[in-house]
């Protein structure tokens, strides 16, 4: 009889805790870390890509596209930088929706794709030519699949956080990047270099910014309430 009562009491406590935490989680309040990624120095000039070996792709581009290893915008802004919470936030389960990676005009769209550990990744071929999609992880499983035109999307996932270069061996100019991250607090800098990490509960965070050519840098940021903190990330550009 007494045991039963204890059980009921602990059940009530557990239920209350679950409900309380559900309420807290349901409210999308919290702080925001936002800012701009820029570079200083002289970045390498993007080089035009010669697609003459693949006419079906070449004709999709009125002017030849250029390499995307460094993409800059006005006012020294740096695009394609993955800004993410590398410490201070709990690991999260992946969202149910898939992220999409497209091969179009013998280019990867987007050039840098960020997603979560174990999140579904859908890779499509919109071209009239065969691609082989060959991500080159060191920690995750390495696979390499052919995707001729008109074949269905390939669905894959990665179970360890990692930055993974992606290439097509058939079209050697095709390069992309996967950023596999532990939680949903990430942002890829836009053309104007801007990024935003919303919905951060109060706490101390380490923000890491990753660029495929210029490497990584980190900053510690403390969020107290529903404030917005602005940080600026500056990468040193290299002319080669």
């Amino acid at each position, binding site marked *: 009889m007494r045991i039963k009562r204890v059980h009921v009491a602990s059940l009530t406590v557990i239920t209350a805790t679950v409900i309380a935490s559900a309420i807290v989680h349901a409210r999308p309040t919290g702080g925001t870390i936002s800012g701009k990624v820029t570079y200083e120095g002289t970045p390498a000039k993007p080089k035009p890509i010669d697609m003459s070996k693949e006419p079906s792709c070449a004709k999709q581009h009125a002017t030849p596209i250029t390499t995307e290893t460094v993409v800059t915008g006005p006012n020294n802004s740096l695009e394609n930088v993955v800004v993410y919470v590398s410490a201070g936030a709990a690991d999260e389960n992946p969202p149910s929706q898939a992220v999409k990676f497209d091969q179009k005009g013998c280019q990867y769209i987007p050039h840098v794709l960020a997603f979560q550990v174990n999140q579904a990744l859908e890779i499509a071929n919109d071209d009239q030519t*065969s691609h082989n999609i060959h991500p080159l992880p060191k920690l995750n499983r390495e*696979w*390499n699949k052919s995707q001729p035109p008109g074949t269905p999307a390939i669905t894959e996932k990665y179970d360890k956080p990692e930055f993974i270069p992606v290439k097509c061996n058939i079209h050697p100019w095709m390069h992309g990047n996967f950023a596999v991250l532990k939680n949903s607090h990430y942002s890829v800098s836009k053309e104007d270099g801007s990024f935003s990490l919303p919905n951060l509960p109060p706490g101390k965070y380490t923000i890491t910014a990753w660029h495929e050519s210029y490497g990584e840098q980190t900053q510690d940021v403390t969020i107290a309430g529903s404030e917005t903190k602005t940080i600026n990330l500056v990468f040193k550009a290299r002319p080669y």
Partner: protein
Amino acid sequence: MNTHSARTLRPLFVMVLTLLVPALGAAQEMESHIGKLTGHSGSGKQLYFRYCWGCHGFRGEGNGENWLPTGSFADEPYLNIQPRNFAAGTFKSRSTPTGTLPTDQDLYDAIGRGFVMSNMPSWITLTDQNRADLIAFIKTFSPRWKTEKSGDPINVPPEPKLTVESIKHGQELFQKLECWKCHGPEGRGDGPSASTLTDSNDQPIRPYNFAVGSRFKCGVTNQDLYKIFMTGLDGTPMPSFADVVKPDDAWDLVHFLRTLQVTRKSPELTLWETTEEGKKEIASRKLSGTPTGSGIRQ
């Protein structure tokens, strides 16, 4: 007197051995299972440090002292294929889908067969038990063997009857799947993308030249050829076609690929030569280079 000194020296000898060969696999005892054979990494370790480490290296990273990086000999940069890095846990020769670990049997077959046009010889001279033990030890180098299971071998349905139609359809697939982009229109390993290829370690690598090759890296039979393009050669530019080629089509492609091997007598080549089209095509083919394409200039 002699026996006595031998006895006193024994602990010293053991100690020196222990220093020379640190306990790499001691903490993670591994087994291999090949048919009725069970291999043990403890025994395999002795064999590894006798036969394998000169090329595959102390920690199995494929950087033993016998391996010279590409470019060491300016004239033959591509013959110098880097020994397998067991620490990476990525293998070319598998019966399992791309991205998965090979079966113990796959690894056992590979060391028994050796790798054509590389410095890896056939180890058929070792006993079956020795080879099984070596496979067990090789599995201690990568943590993948502890956290992952081997992939399930892909299904290879029985080979259908060889017909001219099958060869012709295989030829269409060779075009449609754009195998020629790397392997060249005649399978000579000289396609438009061939000169740009690198493996996952950024080492130059060439596509297979069917015209002068009789054996493949991953075997000699039609079943082996089927598995090569369906599973892909992980760590190389050769992708898996398992998701995009149906089994019947795959067999047609096998039949056509055999006709590209003009220096190797095969039922496929003989049948293809009986047709007007095939006869003309075979006669027009040039022979040059080596099976891995090192002799080909673009």
